[in-house]
């Protein structure tokens, strides 16, 4: 209890907590869950975009998309490393992902159906992710904070690339513009869901905010996202699929419709359009890769043994 107060004081003072510092069990557990989920999201997030790498329309677009997906794998790597400092291994986390004990961001359970989705994912999904992540650069756990700083830099680059795709489509042929509008229609509400249900309904929020693991309420961030994104959509001459959307002079914010939260909970339960495919793909990759991991490990051991023998 004394330690706890001391710990909270450090956090309140803006200190960074480092892996070897004392920390409450709940803090550690919450962080493992949060960083792990974030890492898993980067890994699973490769799939919807990977779905279009082989169909990218130009060599340049293909290169950009490849680089982006490579970055995501890199982010996964930083984040697993940050989580490992808390005393859990990457393999343990991976197994929890694969057997469904840990989640990844539900947005990746939505399909990518046209090339415009590569734009929408960059613009909206990365946009919403950044909105979540920017404040986390100031999170209290040192390794997490440092990982987020690195990640945010790249993500904002990805977002601009996504917007650039949308721009090309929106200013392209009628079919391309239709594609862009269709992508916005499908990704708008799922993007709003990325901030999670209203905090009133969220159980862990208060403690997480005190610990500076969570820096803003879900509703705050969602509002910020809408305020930022609507003018961008207008600039593209695309229509946000919300009849109730309107600017409120008094509040200085947009009013907007909530997403269908029953859909959100359906997806969370595993009934999203692609939950089964995403998990199946990751499980297959892991299972098919076992002989490779075993083989490389066995070789490394042989090599080490030979070196020892030679010394």
């Amino acid at each position, binding site marked *: 209890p004394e330690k706890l107060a001391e710990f909270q004081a450090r956090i309140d003072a803006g200190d960074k907590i480092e892996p070897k510092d004392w920390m409450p069990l709940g803090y550690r557990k919450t962080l493992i869950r949060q960083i792990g989920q974030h890492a898993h999201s980067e890994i699973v997030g490769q799939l919807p975009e990977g779905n279009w790498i082989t169909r990218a329309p130009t060599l340049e677009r293909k290169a950009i998309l490849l680089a982006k997906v490579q970055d995501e794998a*890199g982010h996964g790597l930083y984040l697993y490393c940050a989580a490992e400092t808390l005393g859990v291994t990457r393999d343990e986390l991976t197994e929890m992902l694969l057997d469904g004990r840990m989640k990844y961001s539900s947005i990746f359970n939505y399909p990518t159906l046209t090339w415009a989705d590569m734009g929408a994912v960059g613009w909206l999904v990365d946009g919403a992710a950044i909105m979540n992540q920017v404040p986390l650069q100031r999170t209290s756990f040192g390794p997490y904070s440092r990982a987020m700083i690195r990640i945010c830099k790249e993500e904002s680059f990805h977002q601009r690339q996504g917007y650039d795709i949308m721009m090309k489509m929106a200013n392209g042929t009628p079919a391309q513009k239709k594609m862009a509008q269709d992508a916005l229609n499908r990704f708008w509400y799922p993007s709003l869901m990325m901030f999670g249900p209203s905090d009133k309904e969220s159980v862990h929020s208060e403690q997480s905010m005190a610990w500076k693991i969570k820096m803003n309420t879900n509703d705050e961030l969602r509002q910020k996202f809408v305020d930022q994104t609507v003018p961008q959509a207008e600039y593209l001459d695309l229509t946000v699929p919300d009849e109730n959307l309107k600017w409120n002079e008094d509040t200085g914010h947009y009013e907007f419709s909530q997403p269908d939260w029953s859909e959100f909970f359906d997806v969370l339960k595993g009934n999203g359009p692609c939950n089964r495919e995403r998990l199946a793909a990751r499980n297959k990759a892991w299972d098919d890769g076992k002989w490779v991991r075993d083989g490389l490990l066995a070789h490394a051991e042989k090599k080490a043994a030979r070196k020892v023998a030679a010394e």
Partner: protein
Amino acid sequence: MNREEAFFEFLCRMGDNPLILGHRVSEWCGLAPVLEEDIALANTALDLIGQTQMWLGLAGEVEGAGRSADDLAMLRDVWDFRNVLLAEQPNGDFGQTMMRQYLFDQFHVLLLQRLAESSDERVAGIAAKSVKEVAYHVERSRDTVIGLGDGTSESHRRMQAALDLLWPFAGEMFTDDAVSGQMAEAGIAPQPSTLRADWDAAVRDTMAEATLVIPESDFAHAGGKTGTRHTEHLGHLLTQMQWLQRAYHGATW
């Protein structure tokens, strides 16, 4: 076939190899055995696509018919592709992918080293830029072939199967023909056959270290780099790769 036509053919060969192999490698996206491999495979694909842009860009320039690298990549049908058959072979398991990569990388690096001294400055320039990337590719693919060949009995078995499967596609990389003859005469590129001895030596070393046995037969499939007879795999690859350009011809992306 005049010199210019042969030069165009040669550049298509140079560009189509990384295009098609890069495409194959990119099919792995998000599905590799470990995260580090996901990153490495994406990186390899990225390098190869970059090289494609340079070679096919130059090919379009030399042809002088106003075709861009993208036009060449996205709007030719199978018969116009000039990649070796090895590049278009399916990924198979990770071992097969890495074996294909190593057999090609080892050829590619030797070729690019020689092309860096090409009498054509543009060719020399692209080669000099690419050879650094490919030197890294071959280092990686070689290490992986060795690691998996000399790993568990299961990984050994799979790597031997991959080598046996892909070996008949190795010979095509080293055949000389009218195109390569003209390139050699002009000092633009070496005859492929002159790379064989070094390749054989390097591959022999690698396979020895990997405890893998090189097949005895030197039977070699042909028809890729001349375009006379690709495998059935290429057409399927193109349906994906060219889809958007074919479906929305003339749009910009």
